[in-house]
């Protein structure tokens, strides 16, 4: 459905995308996961024919994004990162406008957007600019879906949206997948990775890993521990200074830790921490999540860059 081959793109001296290769098959929810500035928006804009790659090529539904861009623009749905509908038009006026752009009507494809649009329909005479963040996203998705595209590109659709709306939004994507629609979605939220069929982890224009979320997690190297103590402050620094520490990252209220040795010598670490004034130390082995994998891969990338 989507085929990206060795795409490079740079803005001046900054390499935004570095040799990107991705294949997405029909009916997949494919997540492009990475922090701000990783190159997600650039890649999506290339796929939506809005930007030209420097080198490499990409096809969406077997149409080239550079040469067949006019034909391709009839096919896909696109929801940009920023809310880009007309704030001075009402909800229904926006939807009607996009329906007529694609030469269709709201009624014709209503079944597709019904679940989404139903929720904002009570406000259909309200100006789009006066909607809440979550409702704006629903309207934008409705507008992107009104012409019944086989593939949609969503650039950070859940950024700036409350947790409840985020959850609802992903449920809607699942439903669209049920209609056989291919979904290419980018997000900076690592916890959304598990909601995708396959994901690509992207950092500084490099794809670090492409696989199903489970496989990526299972490929995590070594054992992962969660550590807490009564002295939250300073724990991060002290652990980083522990001689056999490999990686130490703050994860909310506790710290994720991996050791250079295959087995962590818990007693040794506990003594070390007590010596530094920590008490009530708890060290638990835990299962890694995507974010752990991302941080580990990011470390590898940096090491590789240093060599």
């Amino acid at each position, binding site marked *: 459905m989507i085929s990206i081959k060795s795409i490079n793109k740079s803005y001046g001296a900054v390499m935004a995308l570095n040799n990107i290769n991705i294949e997405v098959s029909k009916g997949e929810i494919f997540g492009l996961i990475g922090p701000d500035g990783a190159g997600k928006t650039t890649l999506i*804009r290339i796929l*939506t*024919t*809005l*930007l030209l790659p420097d080198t490499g090529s990409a096809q969406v539904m077997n149409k080239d994004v550079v040469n067949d861009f006019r034909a391709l*623009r009839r096919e896909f749905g696109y929801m940009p990162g920023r809310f880009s509908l007309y704030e*001075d038009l009402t909800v229904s006026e926006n939807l009607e406008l996009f329906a*007529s*752009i694609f030469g269709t009507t709201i009624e014709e494809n209503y079944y597709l957007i019904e679940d989404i649009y139903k929720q904002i329909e009570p406000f259909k005479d309200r100006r789009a600019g006066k909607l809440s963040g979550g409702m704006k996203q629903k309207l934008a998705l409705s507008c992107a879906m009104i012409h019944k595209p086989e593939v949609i590109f969503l650039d950070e659709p859940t950024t700036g949206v409350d947790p409840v709306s985020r959850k609802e939004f992903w449920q809607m994507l699942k439903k669209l997948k049920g209609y056989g629609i291919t979904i290419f979605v980018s997000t900076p939220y690592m916890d959304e990775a598990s909601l995708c069929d396959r994901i690509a982890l992207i950092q500084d224009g490099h794809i670090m890993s492409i696989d199903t979320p489970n496989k990526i997690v299972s490929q995590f190297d070594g054992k992962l521990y969660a550590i807490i103590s009564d002295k939250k402050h300073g724990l991060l620094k002290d652990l980083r200074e522990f001689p056999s520490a490999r990686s130490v990252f703050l994860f909310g209220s506790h710290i994720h830790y991996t050791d250079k040795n295959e087995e962590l010598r818990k007693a040794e670490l506990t003594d070390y921490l007590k010596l530094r004034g920590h008490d009530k130390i708890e060290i638990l082995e835990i299962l890694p999540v995507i974010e752990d994998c991302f941080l580990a891969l990011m470390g590898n990338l940096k090491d590789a860059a240093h060599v």
Partner: protein
Amino acid sequence: MKRFQAFVKKEFHHITRDWRTLIILIGMPIIQIMLFGFAITNEIKDAKIAILDHAQDEHSTVLINKILSTDYFQLEKYLADDSEIESIFKKGKVKEVIIFESGFGEKLEKEKKANMQIIADASDPNTATMLLNYTQAIIVNYQANINLSKKLPFSINIQSEMFYNNELKGVYLFVPGLIAIILMLVSAMMTSISITKEKELGTMEILLATPMKPVIIIVAKVVPYLMLSFINSVIILLLGYFVFGVPVHGSLVLLLLEMILFILTVLSLGIFISTATSSQQVALMASLMGLMLPTILLSGFLFPVENMPLPLQIISNIVPAKWFIIIIKGIMLKGVGLSVIWKETLILMGFMAFFILLSIKKFKPRLA
């Protein structure tokens, strides 16, 4: 076609829902023509003068009465001696002082020759010249009346008439110029801003990712502004005609067609500005500095092009408003037809074609 209709509808919504801007757009021409018509005027009316009459005889008194009986002058004060002249000018109380020598009438009768002096405040040179001319005209007229009974050996009778604007009304000049400026403002500035607004808000990004052709997006944008500009110029014409009595001697149909031509020309200019800029701020500045100033200064609206230094005269040729003002003055005041203004009309068409081609060349179907 349905797409086009939907887009025109959308543009009308944008304009009518931003009612503050709409009020300004409709109100501005009305306010401007009232200002130019009533307040800002270079006609002489009730200019304050002072008189120093050393003679105080029959002739001087009659002449003073003649001068003061016109609308042009109003007596501020009779002066008593020469020393007061400078101080009254310095205070800025009067624009002109008229002085009669002592024994003015007696000399006139006996020696057939008498002297009087007119001093004008030339810190405003145009007004000073006009005041002098008016005063002299009254004196010459008086002189002619005295000589009426006598037979002069030689005399040249001058009969002057001001064609196309009998009463030298400033508003005759301002109405054509104002139409040009308002159209420039509404058409060029508003279109360039409204197109760059879509770029800035990101709606252009989403439109580009649809099968919508850029030409249709832009033409749809132009339609409401074409109508708005046309309504504006009709308002100015009506106000000019009914409030200030500015006539339309030529063909009204031709006038309206030429106005539409000029609107299309500046709209294409506005589109060109929007393809070359990416933010509303830049588009606004470009329209104001790049279009408004040359239009006001170089179009012949305020200052005659013929009096400008040669380089500015050459530059004025690329100001579309200059050609439009020639056209509209020709039709309104002189009543000429297309046979006289075909050259200017062709030039405007050339401008329009040039900017449209340039815009099409510059418009990018992608973001960067």
